[in-house]
């Protein structure tokens, strides 16, 4: 039996590398194996090169690389199976959760937000990455399909995370959704289009996909445009909100001055019945105003994710970017919520009774809590003020109600 020289071994070792074996573990095996075969085959008649070439034939048509590929396939197969089924299951569960969450939200049932959140979360952290990994492995042959799966994944990830951020009222949501959409339209679609026309099989299917993607992205962006009110309109709306708030504070101060004046008068000319009525009016007004003030702070703290103390001090202008998701549950169904539309309505009604008792001829129309005609349809007071509205509008409506309370208080003071 012959023994290979160091140069020959080094030559084989290098040749294995050249033939595409990258795994050091496998190349150790192959080097030893090839050396063994050659050492057994070498005789006095044939030279090293001939025997080496013959030995390589042992490894089949596709050569050494095939062994490495087969090894990788075997090693990843187990993971592949688990990943594939996890992807499918998480996909089913998350889409089911998002769908039922939307249905719950539509019906004002509690738990809608939790369902949607968990659904979107599953979709972004489990389904999409797994889909990407599996697609990426499948498409590893051509550059085009690698680019396709990368852009597709990044775009889908951005859009999903963006929607998740939007639901959570975290900053940057809009940016992510828009850049995801842009990437989908300018990155993914062109590459996809090219691959369809290079690959003639199943053109109809792929064309349909392209059309669906374009339609989906357009719908998504129209939604964003609609919710983005034109600047001038939105600016005057916000001027209205801040000015109403100023007017409210001004009226409260004016009423306080009137109380002081009346108190001075009463100290000289004491009429116990009159002073009792005024005290009653003040305490009833204060109670109702405290409730509305706390309600505003509570709602803002919920939508903006800040504490109620911070919410009390927030500038109304800062609500420009706020969404207001989740409020219907708080204001309507949820029994654990300390503030509700119904409760506010009851408080206003009992305030009206107090005022009527003290000053019977006061005009109470400013505090009407009856049904309201909207677009030819009768809508309840709660719905017209709070239902399906963004937080900014709800706060604006509460300020309007507060102005009504202060105006009624002022009118009652005149009557006493």
């Amino acid at each position, binding site marked *: 039996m012959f023994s290979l020289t*160091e140069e020959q071994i080094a030559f084989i070792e290098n040749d294995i590398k050249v033939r595409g074996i990258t795994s050091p573990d496998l190349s150790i*095996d192959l080097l030893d194996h090839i050396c*063994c075969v050659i050492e057994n085959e070498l005789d006095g008649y044939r030279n090293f090169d001939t025997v080496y070439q013959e030995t390589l034939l*042992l490894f*089949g048509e596709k050569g050494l690389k095939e062994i490495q590929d*087969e*090894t990788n396939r*075997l090693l990843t197969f187990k993971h592949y199976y688990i990943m594939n089924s996890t992807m499918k299951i998480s996909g089913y569960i998350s889409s089911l959760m998002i769908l039922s969450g939307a249905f719950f939200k539509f019906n004002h049932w509690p738990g809608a937000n939790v369902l949607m959140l968990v659904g979107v979360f599953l979709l972004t952290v489990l389904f999409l990455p797994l889909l990407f990994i599996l697609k990426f492995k499948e498409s590893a042959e051509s550059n085009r399909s690698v680019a396709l799966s990368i852009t597709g994944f990044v775009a889908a990830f951005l859009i999903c995370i963006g929607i998740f951020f939007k639901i959570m009222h975290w900053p940057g949501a809009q940016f992510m959704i828009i850049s995801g959409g842009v990437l989908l339209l300018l990155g993914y679609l062109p590459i996809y289009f090219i691959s369809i026309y290079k690959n003639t099989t199943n053109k109809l299917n792929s064309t349909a996909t392209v059309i669906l993607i374009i339609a989906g992205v357009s719908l998504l962006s129209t939604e964003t445009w609609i919710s983005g009110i034109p600047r001038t309109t939105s600016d005057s709306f916000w001027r209205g909100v801040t000015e109403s708030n100023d007017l409210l504070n001004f009226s409260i101060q004016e009423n306080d001055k009137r109380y002081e004046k009346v108190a001075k008068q009463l100290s000289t000319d004491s009429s116990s019945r009159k002073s009792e009525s005024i005290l009653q009016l003040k305490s009833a007004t204060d109670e109702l105003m405290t409730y509305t003030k706390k309600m505003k702070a509570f709602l803002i703290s919920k939508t903006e994710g800040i504490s109620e103390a911070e919410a009390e001090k927030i500038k109304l202008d800062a609500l420009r970017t706020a969404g207001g998701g989740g409020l219907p549950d708080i204001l309507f169904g949820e029994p654990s919520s300390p503030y509700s539309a119904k409760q506010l309505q009851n408080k206003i009604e009992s305030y009206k009774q107090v005022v009527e008792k003290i000053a019977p001829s006061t005009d109470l129309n400013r505090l009407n809590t009856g049904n309201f005609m909207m677009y030819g349809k009768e809508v309840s007071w709660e719905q017209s003020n709070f239902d399906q509205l963004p937080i900014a509008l709800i706060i604006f409506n509460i300020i309007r109600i507060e102005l009504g309370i202060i105006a009624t208080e002022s009118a009652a003071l005149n009557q006493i």
Partner: protein
Amino acid sequence: MPIHNIIMYLCVMYSSALIKGTLKTIVLKLLSETEKMYGYEITQKVKELTGSKIVITEGALYPMLHQLEAEGIVTTETVNIGKRIRKYYTLTQTGNERAKEKIYEFADFINTMNILLDLKPNIKYV
């Protein structure tokens, strides 16, 4: 050796479909009888024991050995042989049990085939 160019999982006498599922059993059995073996040794041993009726190809052997290693059925140790390294494969504890199961399963299969095909049974359980 033109035949090697055609079929990867190859035996000389039997069809590849017949042999494919038994490769693991053969290797496990060999390893359970020897303390440690290296790849080339395994191929030669099979050839020798079967009188060249069954030949394990490199293309089938090494991927399978690496898979067995990843599953914890075999462990490896390396020994320097001059300029090159030789990797020895040894069955682990679980590997030994797996080998017994596989061999039993296969012997049982052959018995069943005997009954099914009405051959004269000549098989002993291990």
